[in-house]
């Protein structure tokens, strides 16, 4: 037993955290995609092993599914991008001391927008504005605005005021305090809001099919209308896999962009 002592000290020195290790290992990065891939293969084999009738065959062609997937990605990508472009700057503005009065009002409006049923919104836009992916995207933007906006505001507000004062105290201008201290420290929370928005939009975008927006929702709709369970299941599974995959990608990005030392 006495021989243990020098080893023990060595272990202690090694464990001392003198350098940050990434929270995300290779295993954590790869597990989710592997599981999703396995799910897709299982789905493919299941569909392949079935006798498909003409309606099913026509709906489940590779070209048809890829087009739906691509349309879905456009709906989600464009709406999320616009949400970020609107909500992050707006959140920054609302977290400035000058906006203390209007912040609650804007917050109330976005909470209201969030609680509007997106299905109703999409249909409403389709009736009043017209059919097409464009109006579906409007509806998606409105319903996904809140998580990004509120997380941006929260992320900036949770920063220790003493730290912001220290930053001003050493001579940073307001802009420098925002860019060099506030935003880096708020990044994890802002990105968490974006993750929520993405997952939310993948789900909501299926409803766009009712407004002529296309996407994976049209696969599901065909399955439902024509009473073809296989088609419905393929559409729904693809949507779920896409949501899980994008969430995972966003999580990896979030970890990568989170400053070390936090």
């Amino acid at each position, binding site marked *: 037993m006495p021989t243990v002592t020098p080893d023990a000290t060595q272990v202690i020195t090694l464990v001392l955290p003198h350098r940050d290790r990434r929270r995300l290992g290779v295993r954590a990065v790869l597990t989710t995609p592997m599981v999703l891939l396995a799910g897709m293969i299982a789905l493919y084999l299941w569909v392949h092993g079935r006798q498909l009738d003409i309606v099913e065959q026509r709906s489940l062609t590779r070209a048809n599914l890829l087009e739906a997937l691509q349309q879905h990605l456009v709906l989600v990508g464009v709406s999320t991008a616009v949400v970020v472009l609107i909500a992050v700057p707006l959140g920054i503005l609302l977290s400035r001391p000058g906006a203390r009065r209007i912040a609650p009002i804007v917050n109330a409006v976005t909470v209201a927008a969030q609680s509007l049923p997106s299905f109703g919104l999409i249909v409403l836009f389709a009736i009043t504005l017209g059919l097409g992916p464009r109006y579906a995207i409007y509806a998606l933007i409105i319903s996904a605005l809140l998580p990004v906006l509120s997380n941006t505001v929260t992320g900036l507000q949770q920063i220790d005021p003493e730290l912001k004062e220290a930053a001003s105290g*050493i001579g940073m201008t307001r802009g420098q305090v925002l860019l060099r201290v506030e935003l880096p420290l708020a990044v994890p929370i802002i990105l968490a809001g974006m993750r929520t928005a993405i997952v939310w939009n993948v789900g909501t975008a299926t409803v766009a099919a009712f407004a002529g927006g296309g996407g994976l929702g049209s696969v599901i709709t065909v399955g439902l209308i024509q009473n073809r369970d296989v088609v419905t299941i393929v559409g729904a599974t693809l949507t779920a896999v896409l949501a899980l995959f994008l969430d995972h990608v966003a999580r990896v990005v979030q970890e990568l962009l989170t400053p070390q030392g936090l």
Partner: protein
Amino acid sequence: MTDAFIKLEKLTKVFPGHTEPAVDELDLCVREGEIVMLVGPSGCGKTTTMKMINRLVEPTSGRIVIDGQDVTGVNPDELRRRIGYVIQQGGLFPHLRVRDNVAAVLRLLGWPKARIDPRVDEMLELVGLDPSVYRDRYPKHLSGGQRQRVGVARALAADPPIMLMDEPFGAVDPIAREHLQNEFLRLQQEIRKTIVFVTHDITEAVKMGDRIAIVRDKSAVAQFDVPARVLASPADEFVRDFLGNNAELRALSLLEVSAHQFSPFPHVSMEPGTTQGDTAHRGPATVVLEDGRPVGWLIADEGPGRFLPVCPLSLGPQTMLSDALNQMVTEGTPAALLTDAAGQFAGCVEFTAVQRAVAGTSAGAAMDERPSEREVAGADGHA
């Protein structure tokens, strides 16, 4: 004596929504190279006062003059880059490594990278942190004391003539705080910054300050003087209350042990390795090794002599009567044992010498004549 380096004239701050001013027509002068302590109860406006000097708080009225220049209206960001700022916990940016924290002001000032890196290492060494070990760490991997040091290094990096320190050592444990205070005083001997230091701890104020301003409500200065005089003759009841009832004891921590306080005691020579009872000496005697190093006392009131080992104090500018008293009380010896810088026996200070010093403080007479050591050194420096 140098002119006022920082001059606050009728400085007033009324916060929006308040009718009463937080700071009311404050006049205060800080000389070049001195540490002025702003000390007072919480909520007295001392921090607000300090923050008006670098205009983190904009004064409602009044003037701030630094080195002859009225800075009340200059660009506050540029002003702050010329003033070191240290707060509790150091105010370090958690997402930046130690080196980037220290380099923060240098980057704002637009220093080229080639100059920044060596400067960062120099600053870390100055505050006693090995650059190769700490340069790349994040603040969360530092102890409270180390964070504080990095905070000081950051404030000093651009070599500002002025430092503002807001309870910088408030968040560390008492032992680390004492250590940081001593080190900072030593550092100040080297860097000679003009420092405004806010604290609520009168002990810290007495220890660190060349002068202390005791502040009451609305940042009104109740007394502004060298610590010894504040302790010896409090200006009024408020100051007396704030000092508490052991001001005399505190004064001891300002009085250096000097040779004229020594009392004679018999020596007993001892060879290393011998133990108690091998001498017939009566009464207390100091035990000094053959090479001249004192190691303790021989107490021999009755029966055989009993050896009491003591770690002696070293006579010097950092050794105060409070340390001597502490040695006597904790070791139970008849007097404090002191060595010179070489570790050789220098002398003994008896309890009566401490008593005499306390009496002298209360009378105030002796202290008035005695300029603080730092002021003397400062005068030499300017000559």
